[in-house]
């Protein structure tokens, strides 16, 4: 499904942190209770290439949506950098606004002022989960699609803009165009609405589209249609996607690479099929084992889910490896008296390459342990 030739790196995210402060009451402020944070994203790094679909997978509360929003600067950024390669038109506009590029021709989108960032919104677009909530019910399809063109001053006249609109609708296969431009969202089915949302995202000819659970509200029978549309767009206009989902089985059909997130960090990252077939982190293993399949033979067996307890609060993140309190592997290693087990409670394991292009953050891999560690 994936095209083999990916282009150059278009996004290089390093050590992204998004911490939300918890409000203190009056008494807590007076008594000097230290400020607490919800560490929604706590050190996430990855790269994306042109024509790549990169998948962020994880359970609710793992920080996958916040990571996506951070790339559009929709949440306050606590730390980290995001070097991005803008399209030619946007790069020219940025230069006019006095933005400096690094030697690779990329800009750090977290360092820009709001005013400088504005033209970049053309290049990074978002598709939301709920096609019922993300389209204005009082706008016709043409108004929904014209809005971004007006904001970014693309197309001089209305008829010129209508041409852009027609092209975008054709791209998402809402044809004949004349039948759809004057409809209101309530006159469309769920799948058609989501295609309008995608048309709105691609009408600006962006570089990167962040799709947050784009098919989870849709029926199974039409999900594939939307997923296939992503694949076609990727080939035809050289788009890159960040596909955010909780569902590993759909990820497999559209993604080149998968990153599994747990409690604000990437615990495993690798080629899509490899992550699913040969997971290298105990959390991924549990996640894969938990996914049901349409096979009636499963009725006879209980699912063996190798994970304990529930996700801790992102306010009190466990010390060391944040997964260790739920980790069956850690428990077993401790029982066997493995020397590396004590590392799990001491320091956060680094994300290291354990197979070609496949990274994991777990001390079960020797590469993750400190140099010269023998116990």
């Amino acid at each position, binding site marked *: *499904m994936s095209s083999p030739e990916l282009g150059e790196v278009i996004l290089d995210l390093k050590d992204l942190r998004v911490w939300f402060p918890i409000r203190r009451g009056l008494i807590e402020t007076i008594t000097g209770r230290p400020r607490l944070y919800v560490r929604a994203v706590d050190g996430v790094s990855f790269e994306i290439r042109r024509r790549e679909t990169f998948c962020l997978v994880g*359970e*609710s509360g793992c920080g996958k949506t916040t990571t996506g929003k951070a790339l559009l600067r929709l949440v306050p950024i606590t730390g980290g950098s995001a070097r991005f390669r803008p399209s030619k038109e946007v790069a020219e506009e940025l230069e006019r606004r006095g933005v400096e590029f690094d030697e690779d021709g990329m800009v750090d989108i977290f360092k820009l002022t709001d005013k400088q960032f504005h033209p970049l919104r053309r290049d990074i677009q978002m598709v939301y989960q709920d096609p019922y909530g993300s389209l204005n019910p009082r706008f016709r399809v043409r108004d929904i699609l014209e809005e971004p063109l007006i904001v970014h001053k693309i197309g001089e006249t209305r008829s010129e803009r209508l041409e852009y609109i027609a092209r975008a609708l054709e791209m998402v296969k809402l044809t004949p165009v004349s039948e759809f431009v004057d409809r209101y969202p309530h006159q469309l*089915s*769920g*799948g*058609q609405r989501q295609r309008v949302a995608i048309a709105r995202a691609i009408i600006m000819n962006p570089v990167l589209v962040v799709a947050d659970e784009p098919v989870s509200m849709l*029926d*199974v*029978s*039409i*999900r*594939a*249609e939307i*997923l*296939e549309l992503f694949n076609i767009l990727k080939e035809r206009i050289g788009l890159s996607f960040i596909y955010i989902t*909780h*569902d*590993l*089985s*759909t990820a*497999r*059909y559209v993604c080149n690479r998968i990153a599994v997130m747990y409690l604000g960090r990437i615990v495993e990252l690798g080629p899509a*099929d490899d992550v*699913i077939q040969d997971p290298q982190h105990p959390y991924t293993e*549990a*996640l*894969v*084992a*938990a*996914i*049901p*399949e*349409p*096979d*009636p033979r*499963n*009725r006879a067996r*209980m*699912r063996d*889910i190798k*994970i304990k307890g*529930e996700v801790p609060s992102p306010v009190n993140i466990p010390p060391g490896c944040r997964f260790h309190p739920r980790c069956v592997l850690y428990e077993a290693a401790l029982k066997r008296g493995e020397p590396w087990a004590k590392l799990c409670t001491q320091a956060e394991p680094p994300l290291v390459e354990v197979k070609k292009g496949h990274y994991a953050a777990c001390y079960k891999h020797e590469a993750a342990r400190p140099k010269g560690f023998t116990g």
Partner: protein
Amino acid sequence: MPLLEVRDLRTYYYTMRGVVRAVDGVSFTLEKGETLGIAGESGCGKSTLAWSLLKLVPPPGRIVGGSILVDGMDVTKMSEHEVRSKIRWRKISMIFQGAMNAFNPVIKVGDQVIEPLLLHTDMDREEAWARAEEMVKHVGLPPEILERYPHELSGGQKQRLVIAMALLLEPDIVIADEPTTALDVVIQAQILNLMKRLYREKGMSIILITHDLSVIAELAERVAIMYAGKIVELGPAEAVFENPLHPYTQALLKAVPRLRGPKERLYYIPGAPPDLRNPPRGCRFNPRCERRFEPCDREEPPLVEAEKGHYVACWLYARR
């Protein structure tokens, strides 16, 4: 005699813009100790069917035809008072979609869990609480949890409590409407394990309603596939999953993304389900069907037994 027998059930919604035929001539039976899965996409009438079984259809909907026999009593003919005293919780209990979010945030969960016991039995609060503690242990939670408030519990814990509540009066039948839909996969797998265990231990009958064919496969012995208010295929799970007969079932199974095995191109069904105010003539699936032929858009196919115990409503299998 089957535990539950539904015959030609029709539940319509009388809206300002016309009559919505949400359930339109559904028949099936449920034996003691059996799990029946009802699968279908949004708007196919599966939740309306569940509400009908407890006579809980919200207005402007009402049951307009057919019968629902429980122990020989017809639920459709009962008064509200009778359904309340004879059927709900005692004979049939229901795990509603999203019920875990319906707990009152300012009342301890324990007091909410024991409510059916106080209303439907002559137990006092102490006895009811003790009974609830027992049931809570059964679903894998510590009994102290009853003393907590809803916001102190996780989604998985609340869903376990809802299941415990449904089992309190030991009903013959439990209807579960999308019991795992809002939960994360790991919690979903734990809840499905719990339901498998309870089912084996208690020997009760379950009607499992969901859009997710993978969840159905985990639990159901027999499967019914609904489309546009009708059952289009009904049979043993093995037969429906491994040898689907109806073109809709075949297409639906091809559209399910799979985690393991070869990565074939995902299939989708062109078009959208029909407007139930004005369903297409003949077979309701015919405008989207690849194997449509001459009788399909004129006459409605009957549900016929194509193999032993495997029923299908399609002209490919019916004799005219």
